[in-house]
């Protein structure tokens, strides 16, 4: 209970205010962006003065101000959604089906719907701003019999639907590219400079993303553009009075060129307006996201120790051990890494002894937490390696079995399937820890959740797509073995003969995704390594009481064991393949390279300790195997 209270303290006092500040800045930036948009959408080369007067008129008109207030409301909601949905540990879908599961997750779906709705609102504001033919949903027209009526303005409709489409696709892409993932930077900069540096990129991203969205939207509208008209006709058929009234209100003027034809859509001015409003929409949202990221990842300086007991839960050693919220833990680790590098006075507090008693509580708590983080990663890597090693054998075994069995059995070849087996066998195996952070988060793919949980008969997945495989993949099936040559052959046939839809989805395991998932939260480990190694280095000259010396053997052996596990992991296929860089997306792909960063940091951390202590390390009590390994580092042969 106490711990939740404390985490509330941080969320309430820091994160919320940071989010509020970021939203406030986003709202402040809205007027200039809107002004630019108004000028861009209204500009005509032939009448520049008229453009300016129109802009001025629009900005002072009631509808202009009202739509601006609406836009502010949208920004507020977007900012709130970021606060609600952000994560510091990305959710990595190991297969396409897991990704699909992520997309269809109710929470995401609600998010998409809200974005969709907000897209409509922004599009409406754009329509009001652009004026002319876009301004209203209906316009007066005369029927064939000369009776005056209101007709549906398809230009307005197409713009509103475009807003909905762009909003929806933005949120879908957000899930695919992990846009809610907030990454921390290795280079610290002031917020203003960071914003200034990122702004051109955001503009570029928004413009390109808008271009693609509008293209897709146009294609969709071309095929589905009849729908509004069908709806209209359906309304005619409905006997309800209200609807008929509505229907009577909006009549479609069929004499106008219909917009769902190729010729109708190839209207350059229409395309330009669609693109500019989509860019405007994405730009405002992306800037909100950018500001949120910048504000949330700002360094927070925790006190190392406090003289008042009521503040002790806000001190670094206490905060580090918190499990939730993750942002608190990450910021604490970041602060630890920075203080160990740059701040001699705060390091001195870390090495200090408690006043009555003379115990190095600060150092003990910090080193213990860092070591447990590193040990956790080591265990995870070892477990994964073991599973993959058995997977290679088991997979060929089972497929060999398939070939011989009269009825072919579908088998899912995702790494997740492997976990399912091991979980089914021993639910408390260390493997479950691999995905536990993801399970708590709402972004956890249902597939993964299903795999780590015991098979649930009531789950919607049961009995639909994969349940037969799970049932058939009982451990006894895997343990049977036959000749090896057959396995090779069968493997080939197994992978080539699949054509069913499910197989296409489940077979295409995204390469290296499991490796990425393994290191998804490695930023924490990187900081722990940096913090520990810098503190140990500083202890050489600053540690007056020798508090670090007692933990030096465990730190060294922990790092060496991790080094071994990481080395082994990088020998696996796909682990060392570099991910493709995607530059034109707002999604942060830092998590894709975290494993390389971890490997480099780990090596540097060990070298930092060996270089500082040199031959003194020979006096440290460690096992013979580790000493041998350490000797390699002392001789610079790693």
């Amino acid at each position, binding site marked *: 209970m106490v711990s939740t209270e404390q985490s509330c303290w941080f969320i309430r006092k820091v994160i919320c205010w940071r989010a509020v500040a970021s939203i406030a800045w986003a709202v402040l930036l809205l007027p200039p962006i809107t002004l630019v948009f108004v000028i861009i959408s209204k500009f005509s080369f032939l009448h520049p003065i008229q453009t300016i007067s129109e802009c001025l008129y629009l900005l002072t008109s009631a509808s202009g101000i009202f739509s601006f207030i609406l836009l502010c409301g949208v920004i507020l909601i977007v900012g709130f959604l970021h606060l609600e949905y952000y994560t510091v540990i990305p959710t990595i879908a190991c297969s396409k089906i897991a990704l699909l599961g992520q997309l269809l997750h109710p929470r995401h779906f609600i998010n998409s719907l809200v974005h969709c709705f907000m897209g409509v609102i922004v599009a409406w504001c754009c329509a009001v701003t652009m004026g002319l033919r876009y301004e209203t949903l209906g316009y007066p027209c005369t029927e064939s019999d000369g009776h005056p009526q209101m007709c549906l303005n398809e230009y307005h409709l197409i713009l509103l639907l475009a807003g909905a489409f762009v909003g929806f696709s933005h949120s879908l892409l957000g899930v695919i590219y992990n846009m809610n993932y907030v990454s921390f930077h290795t280079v610290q900069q002031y917020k203003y400079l960071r914003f200034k540096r990122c702004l051109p990129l955001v503009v570029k991203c928004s413009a390109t993303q808008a271009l693609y969205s509008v293209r897709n939207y146009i294609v969709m509208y071309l095929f589905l553009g009849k729908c509004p008209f069908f709806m209209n006709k359906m309304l005619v058929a409905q006997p309800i009075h209200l609807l008929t009234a509505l229907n009577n209100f909006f009549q479609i003027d069929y004499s106008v060129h219909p917009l769902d034809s190729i010729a109708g859509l190839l209207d350059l001015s229409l395309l330009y307006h669609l693109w500019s409003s989509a860019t405007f929409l994405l730009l405002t949202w992306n800037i909100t996201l950018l500001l949120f990221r910048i504000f949330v990842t700002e360094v927070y300086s925790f006190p190392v120790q406090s003289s008042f007991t009521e503040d002790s839960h806000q001190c670094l050693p206490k905060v580090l051990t918190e499990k939730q919220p993750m942002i608190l833990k990450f910021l604490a680790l970041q602060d630890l890494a920075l203080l160990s590098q740059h701040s001699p006075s705060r390091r001195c507090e870390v090495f200090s002894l408690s006043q009555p008693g003379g115990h190095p509580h600060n150092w003990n708590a910090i080193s213990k937490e860092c070591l447990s983080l590193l040990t956790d990663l080591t265990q995870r890597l070892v477990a994964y390696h073991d599973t993959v090693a058995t997977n290679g054998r088991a997979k060929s075994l089972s497929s060999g079995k398939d070939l011989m069995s009269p009825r072919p059995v579908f088998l899912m070849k995702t790494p997740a399937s492997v976990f399912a087996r091991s979980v089914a066998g021993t639910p408390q195996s260390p493997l479950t820890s691999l995905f536990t952070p993801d399970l708590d988060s709402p972004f956890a793919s249902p597939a993964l959740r299903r795999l780590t949980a015991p098979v649930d008969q009531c789950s919607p997945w049961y009995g639909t797509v994969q349940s037969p495989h799970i049932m058939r993949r009982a451990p006894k099936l895997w343990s049977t073995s036959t000749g090896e040559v057959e396995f090779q052959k069968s493997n080939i046939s197994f992978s080539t003969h699949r054509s069913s839809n499910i197989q296409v989805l489940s077979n295409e395991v995204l390469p290296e995704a499991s490796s990425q998932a393994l290191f998804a939260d490695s930023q924490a480990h990187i900081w722990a390594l940096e913090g520990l190694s810098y503190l140990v280095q500083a202890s050489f000259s600053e540690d007056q009481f020798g508090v670090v010396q007692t933990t030096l053997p465990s730190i060294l052996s922990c790092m060496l064991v991790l080094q071994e596990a990481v080395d082994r992991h990088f020998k696996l296929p796909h682990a060392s393949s570099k991910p493709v860089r995607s530059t034109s997306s707002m999604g942060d792909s830092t998590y894709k390279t975290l494993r390389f*960063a971890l490997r480099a940091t780990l090596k540097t951390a060990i070298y930092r300790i060996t270089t500082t202590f040199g031959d003194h390390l020979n006096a440290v009590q460690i096992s013979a195997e580790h000493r041998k390994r350490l000797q390699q580092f002392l001789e610079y042969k790693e």
Partner: protein
Amino acid sequence: MCSLALFPPPLPSGQTTLCESNNELLSGASTEDRLKQESSPLSLHFPRESLKLHSRTESSSKAAFLDHSETLWMRSAAAWRDGGFTGLLNEITNSHTEVPKWLSMSSGCILALLRWVSSFHGSLFPHLTLSSEDMIAEFSQVLNWSDCVVRAFAWHPHTDKFAVALLDDSIKIYNPKSATTPTLKHRLQRSVAAVQWKPLCASALAVACQNCLLVWHVDPCSLSTRPSSGCAQVLSHPGHSPVTSIAWSPSGSLLLSASPMDSTMMVWDVAAESCVPLQRVGGGGVSFLSWSPDGSHVLASTPSALFRVWETRMWTCERWPCVKGRCQSGCWSPDGSRLLFTVQGEMVIYALTFTDAPGQLSHSGPQAAAVVADLSETTFSTPDGDIVVGGEIQSLVWDPRGERLAVLLKGDPQAADRPAIIAVFKTRANPIFELLPCGFVQGEAGAEPRLMQFHPNFQHGALLTVCWSNGRITHVPFYFVSAGVPHFGLSGSPLLPHPQQRPADFVNQSQHHHL
């Protein structure tokens, strides 16, 4: 203030500097010196004739193939790929027979407009009009880089191995403890301007090339003499070429790169292959970088009369406008508190003192630079005739203990009596910072120093490695007793007690011994 007049006269021709011992530079005749040096495993000789140079450049290989006419689209695509927008415009303008007249006309106009704008830009920053080879030669720390056999040299910060970049664009790694000398070659490794080993790492070597930055991972235990190009990471950023200067952070986590063409300085996270551009208006590029050994500051000089000192905690910078020319070279004291630099067109060494503790934001930095040495031309009479020493400075290096400062003087290649020469100063920080004369380092007759670097952790004092114009690499040890504290390898940390903080009386005793 120290001046060259206080120096002992240069050696007569035929004599070479061997070492410093008992506060005196010892010299020897060339022949016996050579014998002695041949026996040393680290002294190398790369005769120009032994290098296989590129007989023809890549562009001229086009002539060897038959002319093949491609469609306009293919050519345009190729031009877009090779030359970007201007290449495409060029292609369209040149193939005016195939494209509509208005298109070729308009592209010609745009091209002319672009050229006009770039010439305007070039008149602001004249260095932008140089070709990339000339630019590297202009801004490199190596004297006469384009004609140099050894183009770059780097000691490993912790061990006795070093990397040598040669005129034929290959890099060789020498390690006295290993029989293999790996040769690194890569398709993109051209016109190497600088190499540097990553601190706190055994294997990573960063190479500044014409178009990109390469980070080689050379396994020290591997027996391979030709590591494959798969061992190299390629780091490139559009517009960031040629790279003339690189600097690893002393903690080994970040790599900085600079190009005179690009006003942004890149901070690379090498493992993630991502970069953070740091941009400031003015200067027209970044030509030289030097990271202070304690990691707290970075000197970044620009091609115009301006240099910046970055503070590495939050990456903010101080602007330092120079009066006369650009900052040519600079070096940091081991504790990162003092920066020595030279300005093109001036014959003095300036010093800046940073008193702030590392980690705290500095707003109380120095107000003006102080002149600490005057290197204006001085005539010495030797048995061979008068020799004029002094003038502009090519580069400065300071040994890792902060006791010896080597200055490479440009000289005048046309005049025989004004040779390029290395002047070595003794430095002391207490009670006031001052430079004291030590002597000149000279090589064989006819060999000019081109490049020099101090060994990062020489146990008995300082070891200056000099690359000569005749392809020879020699090592000149300076034996002196430093502080009594043991040496812990490279002082990569600001925390370690630095050897130069020794009792002042001891300094006085050792330095006045022979005066």
